[in-house]
């Protein structure tokens, strides 16, 4: 099934639902190394995203509206990072339907936009530990098999994001507030990487149906 506006709406609704159910868990995770509000920030972001997607617009424009919706709805790092991700995805195409390669290119463009905001890399214990491997896995899947469906591509992304999120347990934080904890941040999972992995999982689930 190609990726359409309806797929995107379904994904966002699902992402919002998952994050709502993990709200306290995300705040708790963030409390260990940050200031305990990541659940609050990411839930506001997803509410803003769902709201922005209600308005009908061409698919690329809808991605951008979601980016703005997120930035309007929340603050902190989440605002500019997740907002930039959706803004960037909307820059990559002008079609109303995306195939596997199309969605992988959109993800790639989203990542590039995020990298204009932060220099965090894999291993720095941030949401980039989920986002970078996810976007790479999507690209590899799409490049290896031109017939790969959006569901295949997004399933690979979700698996890589989940792996990336759990890898943060063993990492020393190098960005954001957790950074000042140094070695003491080891043993805690990064809340931003976890919520990012939920969003990628929603992308995978939403595109499969």
């Amino acid at each position, binding site marked *: 099934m190609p990726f359409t506006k309806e797929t995107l709406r379904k994904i966002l609704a699902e992402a919002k639902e998952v994050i709502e159910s993990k709200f306290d868990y995300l705040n708790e995770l963030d409390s260990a190394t*940050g200031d305990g509000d990541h659940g609050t920030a990411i839930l506001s972001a997803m509410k803003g995203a769902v709201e922005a997607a209600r308005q009908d617009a061409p698919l690329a424009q809808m991605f951008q509206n979601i980016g703005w919706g997120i*930035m309007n709805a929340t*603050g*902190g790092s989440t605002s*500019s990072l997740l907002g930039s991700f959706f803004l960037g995805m909307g820059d990559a195409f002008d079609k109303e339907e995306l195939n596997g390669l199309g969605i992988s290119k959109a993800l790639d463009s989203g990542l590039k936009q995020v990298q204009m905001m932060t220099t965090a890399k894999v291993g720095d214990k941030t949401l980039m530990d989920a986002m970078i491997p996810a976007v790479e896995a999507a690209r590899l899947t799409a490049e290896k098999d031109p017939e790969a469906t959006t569901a295949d591509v997004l399933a690979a992304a979700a698996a890589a994001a989940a792996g990336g999120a759990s890898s943060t347990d063993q990492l020393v934080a190098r960005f954001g507030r957790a950074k000042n904890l140094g070695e003491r941040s080891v043993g805690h999972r990064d809340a931003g990487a976890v919520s990012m992995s939920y969003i990628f999982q929603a992308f995978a689930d939403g595109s499969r149906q």
Partner: protein
Amino acid sequence: MVMKKFLNKPENLTKELLEGYTECYNRQVKLATEKIVVRAEAKSKDKVAILTLGGAGHEPALSGFVGYGMLDASIVGDIFAAPGGPVVYEGLKLFKDYAGIILVVLNHAGDVMNAKMGCMMAQRDGIKVSQILTSDDIAAGVDAPIEDRRGLGGCIPLIKIIGAAAEQGKSVDEILAIGEKFNQRMATLAVTMKTATHPQSGQYISTLPDDKMEIGMGQHGEGGETGPVAIKTADETAEIMIPELIAAVHAKAGEKVVLIVNGSGATTLMEMFLIYRKSAELLKKAGLEIVFGRCDELLTVQESGGFQLFLAVADDEAAKLLAEPSDAPYWVTK
């Protein structure tokens, strides 16, 4: 966990606190939008506007310093979180017709990124914005790279100085030069005795054993470099902190300095005066002349116990600007 705080709905917290604040000080400040605080009486547009952004929950910072001689606007985010890029842009747009805009940004990832996003959006409209990035925290060491130095309460005296310069009609470049000169030689070291809860989630923002304190903890409960240590007396604490601050600002005998003890929320003025007493004694012993001193709650972290100790070298110009009149609700100079 039951939070012992007087709250209404968590999601309305920032909006309501700003409404209360601007109502209380309506002679000096008002709301331009839900989360942008401006002066009740705008200054004339032939002068440079001074703006800042930052999360709520640190009252009176930063909106408490909007007023004559200091800020023109404070762009407020939710609790402990920078405002989103579009909100920053909205704030900058309000001052597009002024002689210039200087945005004071505290070095925290969210603040820096959203300031960047807001400025990018403003630039597309042809609005030019200059930034001053403050990174006065020396918890990571006196010579730590800028990425490792957070912006703490030092932005407030800096805002007082550049705000006074803006009021005198100085240009963007002149104000930036004055601001950067002060910025280069200011330092803050925080100490935390008791941790605070996040007023929306009820989560502790950090943990600290009952019999310990931590030097170098940031204003959101981020840990210090040394970790928790046994509680020390006021004099011992000042004796640890002051030499580090002197070293950080490279203060030499004969120079003029600014000393501020900024309470975090639960530490009493009584304790702050003990810290100030010993700190002043140590500075004088080092041959430094204190031209401005203050013990107060300027930038707080909820019910957190502890304080930020601030030291800056002030040249004659900065000292004079600090003494100029100001009429912000939380910084009045007659």
